[in-house]
């Protein structure tokens, strides 16, 4: 078969890239080689359109033990000799086509990134976005995705401890499924994804290779169209039982000291793992593809190289220790095959029955090596004009806050997500400390380390759409706020950057500004970015999704007794608002969903104010002066006051003067950096003095009751009636 630019174009390579490949090889590639470049230079593997901007993020310092992007996941120092490993990844396109397997394999993939490093995963989170929940297609996708996440995670045995779910029309065609996993390990036992030692054997372990997922990486690097359904073979099929055995076998093998390097096979399967491990160690590999166990007959070399069959690992073993490997995998009934050797020439040579099928310098395939890097054109989006034109005075203020409150707490973005999370095993591992004591972030005991972790995923993409720079900052700020309100110290970030097509200058503008905002906020909170994933091309015929830079953040509780819960604790406690009330309804759920205003600015946000407010919360918690802390987010102050009551069925009496603030802004506005705390009577004076001394505004709102709710003299009834509405809103839509 003659290889021309037309072949390359069909493999989603540009003419410029095809020329570059010929130049690098000094010849025209054969089909197998061209396929390898297509996969490795896809956005998904090479970050070619994003890496220049990702490098502007704070990527070192603090507790980081490996540089960002160097290994399969980030590793940070927990103290006491332990490290926390974490990463978030997208599986958007597979989930759009086949929600169950798409989401399931997304969970499987992120778990492998964690245990490849030698860590045992202890917690999973996810961030999901769908179209309008009343739409039947959305309901199908939601049910499939949730079932898939549950199917994989529940069997694999890692608790799903937190997450977020949003419904916005822009995600109708292209839902977002971002999965995060967190593991712990002894910090000095990390297994690197590096191949070293000429002559060392290369092992292929785990499931047999089939034709599923071929071209997945390049599939993820194109828009979704009606024809995408023909790419269905590009969606992988997951086997969580196999992965559970793989986990146990790999962790057991690490203890034998036989492993030189290990990498999981995710996107672009064998070609990606061999190329990345070799390039990193400055070596090459000779691989006999015919020794790879297959589940389909007559697979071609390019199919074997590109298959994204799940639950597979590549392991470089110290020569002479092959038997240790075989024994461990035999114990766990997991297949392990010796498929090749490390070589010294930097060349990847793939053979089928002793016939050389492909020979490519590993370095040329990978990010940081020969893979191209671009910076795309960017222009300010036209829709900004509509955002700038928003005038709050065109919206009439409300009079009846009770009826608005009733609507607000039943908006799917705000209502309880129990229909979703009750399908996830959230308690396996007996380390989820939030089940019986909820906090803004999920608190997970890191057994054996003497510490606990506070973990959260956050992004309000409506804010990022309104103002990518400020929205990017808010995503980081909210994550940090959630961790601080839970008593944790934020230490680091993993991000999942979901955007539209990067060749659209307006999309690229959103990307650049959001990354810049995230970077500024991460520097402020001293939470470096340890890695993550970029997912472009999230768009369908109706346009791009909201720019969605999901932030996964990890915090540490050195002392578990500093854990802070979000809920009212006792009747009679005082309710205090920390932070300023503002005349702001911009980008609020109230404005967007109840007033149907799609274009308005991002809510009020000031990075220094945010930081200072978090500092005072951290100080109050450390001094054991407060009994609860819950930040104000979607739905505003009103929703926060209710949410604090649900856990223990406690109500509140609040009596305040709205002053010059509009009623809608006072109760439902989403101005940032506000936190509602409760304080025992005996501590009140000390707390108020400490807040005032720090120069931070605080306002006394009222007191906790046994269940009845009164706001400025209006009887709101009992908390249990509100809880019922909040709990069942999503179920009621799905059951209709």
């Amino acid at each position: 078969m003659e290889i021309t630019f037309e072949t390359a174009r069909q493999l989603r390579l540009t003419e410029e890239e095809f020329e570059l490949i010929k130049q690098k090889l000094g010849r025209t590639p054969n089909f197998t080689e061209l396929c390898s470049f297509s996969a490795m230079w896809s956005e998904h593997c090479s970050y070619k359109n994003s890496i220049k901007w990702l490098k502007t993020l704070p990527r070192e310092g603090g507790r980081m033990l490996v540089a960002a992007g160097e290994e399969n996941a980030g590793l940070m120092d927990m103290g006491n000799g332990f490290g926390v490993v974490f990463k978030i990844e997208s599986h958007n396109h597979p989930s759009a086509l086949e929600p169950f397997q798409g989401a399931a394999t997304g969970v499987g993939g992120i778990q492998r990134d964690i245990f490849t490093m030698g860590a045992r995963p202890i917690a999973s989170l996810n961030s999901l976005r769908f179209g309008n929940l009343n739409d039947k297609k959305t309901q199908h996708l939601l049910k499939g995705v949730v079932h898939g996440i549950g199917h994989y995670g529940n069997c694999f045995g890692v608790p799903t401890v937190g997450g977020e779910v949003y419904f916005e029309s822009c995600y109708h065609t292209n839902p977002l499924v971002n999965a995060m996993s967190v593991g712990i390990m002894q910090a000095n036992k990390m297994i690197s994804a590096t191949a070293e030692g000429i002559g060392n054997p290369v092992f292929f372990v785990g499931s047999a290779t089939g034709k599923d997922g071929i071209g997945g990486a390049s599939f993820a690097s194109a828009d979704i169209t009606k024809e995408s359904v023909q790419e269905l073979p590009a969606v992988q099929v997951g086997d969580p039982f196999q992965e559970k055995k793989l986990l146990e076998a790999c962790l057991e093998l690490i203890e034998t000291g036989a492993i030189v390097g290990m990498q999981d096979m995710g996107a672009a399967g064998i070609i990606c793992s061999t190329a990345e491990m070799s390039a990193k160690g400055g070596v090459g590999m000779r691989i006999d593809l015919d020794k790879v166990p297959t589940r389909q007959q007559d697979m071609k070399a390019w199919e074997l190289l590109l298959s994204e069959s799940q639950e597979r690992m590549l392991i470089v073993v110290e020569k002479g220790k092959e038997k240790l490997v075989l024994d461990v995998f035999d114990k766990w009934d997991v297949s392990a095959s010796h498929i090749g050797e490390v070589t010294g020439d930097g060349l990847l040579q793939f053979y089928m029955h002793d016939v050389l099928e492909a020979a490519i310098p590993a370095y040329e395939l990978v990010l940081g090596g020969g893979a191209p890097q671009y910076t795309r054109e960017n222009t300010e989006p036209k829709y900004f004009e509509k955002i700038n034109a928003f005038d709050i005075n065109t919206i009439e203020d409300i009079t009846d806050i009770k009826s608005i409150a009733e609507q607000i707490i039943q908006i799917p973005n705000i209502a309880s997500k129990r229909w979703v999370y009750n399908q996830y095993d959230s308690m396996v591992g007996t380390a989820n400390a939030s089940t019986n004591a909820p906090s803004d972030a999920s608190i997970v005991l890191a057994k054996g380390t003497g510490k606990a972790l506070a973990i959260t995923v956050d992004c309000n993409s409506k804010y990022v759409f309104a103002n990518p720079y400020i929205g990017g900052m808010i995503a980081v700020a909210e994550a940090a706020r959630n961790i601080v309100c839970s008593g944790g110290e934020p230490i680091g970030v993993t991000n999942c950057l979901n955007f539209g097509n990067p060749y659209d200058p307006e999309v690229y503008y959103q990307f650049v500004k959001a990354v810049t905002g995230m970077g500024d906020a991460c520097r402020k909170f001293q939470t470096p970015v340890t890695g993550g994933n970029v997912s472009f091309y999230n768009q369908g015929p109706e346009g791009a999704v909201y720019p969605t830079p999901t932030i996964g953040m990890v915090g540490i509780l050195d002392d578990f007794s500093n854990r802070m819960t979000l809920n009212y604790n006792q009747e009679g406690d005082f309710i205090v608002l920390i932070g300023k009330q503002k005349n702001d309804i911009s980008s609020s759920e109230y404005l967007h969903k109840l007033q149907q205003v799609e274009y308005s600015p991002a809510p009020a946000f000031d990075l220094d104010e945010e930081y200072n407010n978090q500092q005072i919360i951290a100080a109050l918690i450390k001094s054991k002066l407060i009994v609860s802390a819950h930040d104000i987010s979607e739905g505003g102050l009103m929703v926060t006051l209710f949410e604090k009551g649900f856990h223990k069925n406690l109500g509140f009496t609040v009596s305040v003067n709205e002053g010059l603030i509009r009623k809608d802004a006072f109760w439902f506005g989403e101005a940032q950096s506000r936190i509602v705390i409760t304080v025992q009577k005996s501590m009140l004076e000390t707390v108020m003095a400490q807040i005032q001394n720090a120069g931070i505004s605080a306002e006394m709102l009222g007191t906790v009751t046994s269940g009845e709710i009164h706001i400025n003299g209006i009887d709101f009834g009992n908390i249990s009636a509100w809880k019922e509405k909040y709990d069942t809103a999503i179920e009621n839509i799905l059951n209709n």
Partner: protein
Amino acid sequence: MKFGVVVFPGSNCDKDMQDSLLHDLQKEVIMLWHKDKDLSMFTTDDCIVLPGGFSFGDYLRCGAIAKFSPMMQSVIEFANKGGKVLGVCNGFQILCESGLLPGVLLQNANQQFICKNVFIKSDESDALQIPIAHGEGRFFANDATLDEMESNNQILFRYCNKNGVVAPEFNPNGATRNIAGICNKNRNIFGMMPHPERATASALQNIDGKKIFQILGLN
């Protein structure tokens, strides 16, 4: 009294059970590999636990493959000699598949996996808050079997509300007669869907699980 916890491939509550028994109930615990057979270190005063999880992936009926493992042959022998055996969640499913306990566990009535805190009670106890986490936990047996079990006091736990009221609306999975846990006629083999080992650590703010072990006489 010491405990043996069987580890099948796909078990994922084995370590939780070990932690609970060892740290929260201060018991001696020996982990048992499914490919082994030796139970000679146990007497009939001891207890073998089949933990929760997805043994062998549970791609067939839950527990249907696990019952053939070498260790299960020894466990069946041990149980028939009068040794104590506790199966939790997947362990309960394995006990039913093995014929050590009557009945079967069907897919939940709502066709979904359910994980949440529920309340269960024994005839003598108050309502105890214990987590469930299963997709196939709907206990079923025919009426004759059920009547016989009732008359032998083999129903150990039923789903209820926090005040101890047993009624259909407090039944999370559609189990017949709200059954959450049972024992055999000789009262040495116990099976239950809720996870008592998930409710014994004070750091998790629920230690009702300790009372479950007490009721079973395994404390």
